[in-house]
């Protein structure tokens, strides 16, 4: 291969004037983490509500939940981001649309909300599966004790369901982190975007992408270790993930 390797490139100043190329990648990493956490909060909040809706006995409620999940699952994330970023401001009353277009950091908010809603459909499916995996007796016992539906979910079903689905939620969180890279298309400079601009400025393709790869691996390792500790603390003895 006649590729010119130059690993010292990371300590050379980047043309965007914020410091070295390494600083550029690290600020991309920071954006990736910020977007992922914001998106994850949205995904958990909306996903929990929709996941519960889908398990309710009411046909209307589960129908709404089903429609929500289908809507967000059957479109590519990239298309969804384009809808939020390019299409939504045009469909709103013009004053609102203008406000959205002039919003500082619009790509950041769009990415956080768009990825959050996209992931919320997946969280909802996991939670539905978790609630569905509980023995029927749990719900029956709660009803027999005179708990209302809300109390049954609040005190009986959800505390166990969430603990059962911890492992799949970990991988959904990692998917959220990975999905932030799609926001490169609405010009958010997250980690992949930073590596891409480093490549465009310096022509050191493989160094830039190697560094980004290592940083992504690092996020994965940290998240997996942290979640394993949390899972161990929360595991229910006698259940699959418990001892």
């Amino acid at each position, binding site marked *: *291969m*006649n*590729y010119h390797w130059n690993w010292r490139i990371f300590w050379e100043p980047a043309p965007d004037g914020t410091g070295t190329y390494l600083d550029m990648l690290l600020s991309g990493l920071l954006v990736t983490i910020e977007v992922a956490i914001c998106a994850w909060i949205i995904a958990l909040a909306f996903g929990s509500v929709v996941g519960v809706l889908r398990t309710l006995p009411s046909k209307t409620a589960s129908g709404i939940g089903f429609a929500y999940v*289908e*809507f967000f*699952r*059957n*479109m*590519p*994330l*990239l*298309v*969804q981001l*384009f*809808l939020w970023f*390019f*299409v939504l401001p*045009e*469909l709103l009353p013009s004053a609102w649309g203008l406000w959205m277009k002039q919003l500082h950091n619009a790509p950041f908010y769009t990415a956080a909300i768009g990825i959050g809603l996209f992931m919320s459909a997946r969280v909802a499916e996991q939670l539905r599966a978790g609630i569905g995996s509980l023995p029927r007796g749990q719900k029956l016992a709660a009803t027999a004790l005179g708990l209302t539906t809300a109390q049954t979910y609040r005190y009986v079903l959800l505390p166990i369901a969430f603990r059962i689905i911890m492992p799949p939620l970990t991988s959904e969180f*990692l998917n959220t*982190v*990975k*999905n*932030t*890279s*799609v926001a*490169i*298309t609405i010009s958010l400079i997250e980690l*992949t975007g930073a*590596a*891409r601009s480093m*490549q465009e400025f310096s022509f050191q*393709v*493989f160094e830039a*992408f190697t560094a*980004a*790869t290592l940083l*992504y*691996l690092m996020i*994965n390792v940290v998240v997996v270790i942290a979640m394993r500790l949390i899972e161990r603390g929360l595991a229910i003895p006698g259940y699959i993930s418990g001892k």
Partner: protein
Amino acid sequence: MFANFDFDVIRRSLAYLFLDGMTFTLMLTGLAGLGGLVFGTLIALMRLSRFRLMGHIAGLYVDLIRSLPLVLVIFWFYFLVPYVGQWLTGASRPIHVGAFASSLVTFVMFEAAYFSEIMRAGIQSISKGQPAAAQALGLTYSQTMRYVVLPQAFRNMLPVLLTQTIVLFQDTSLVYVVSIPDFLGAASKVAQRDGRLVEMYLFAAVVYFAISSFASFGVRRLQSRIAIVR
């Protein structure tokens, strides 16, 4: 709200969108799905083999690919494939690789990691008695796999494999990042040429939604029909 919409732009570009864009997307989905399945099965067999080293290598590959975002993998292969091609063919400079070949290699390599996990679960779901019986009949390892284990694993995992293919169909839209004209890329080109982002992106969303919903409906039906009663 829709007053100053120009829906005619969609009609005018239909031929381009579907004959060029959608053909590219569907070809890529189909071939990458097949390639991913073949390589994924090989990787799964490696991981389950008695040779520890081979299992570790396959495991490392799967873990590496699965912890990277697809966008980054697309960039990697987009820039790497010409160099690998040069190395393989012994050319004097990085070879030119077409848009389709480049994205096909990317998606086959990427999907292989995901399909291998599905096939591994499928192979492990076969009861131990099956390969033991095959061995008792005197079948070799490859015969056992070909005639006994893999057909059952494939059948058990068919709904999951098809669901993964729907995900793949949606993921092919990400070739947008290296300006390859798949369906979304084609829509985006027309959108930017005519200044009609709203109409084109809404139309693209509707088309993706229709195809994915139809396909996942089909998978759900298939799942209930082929379920083996045990």
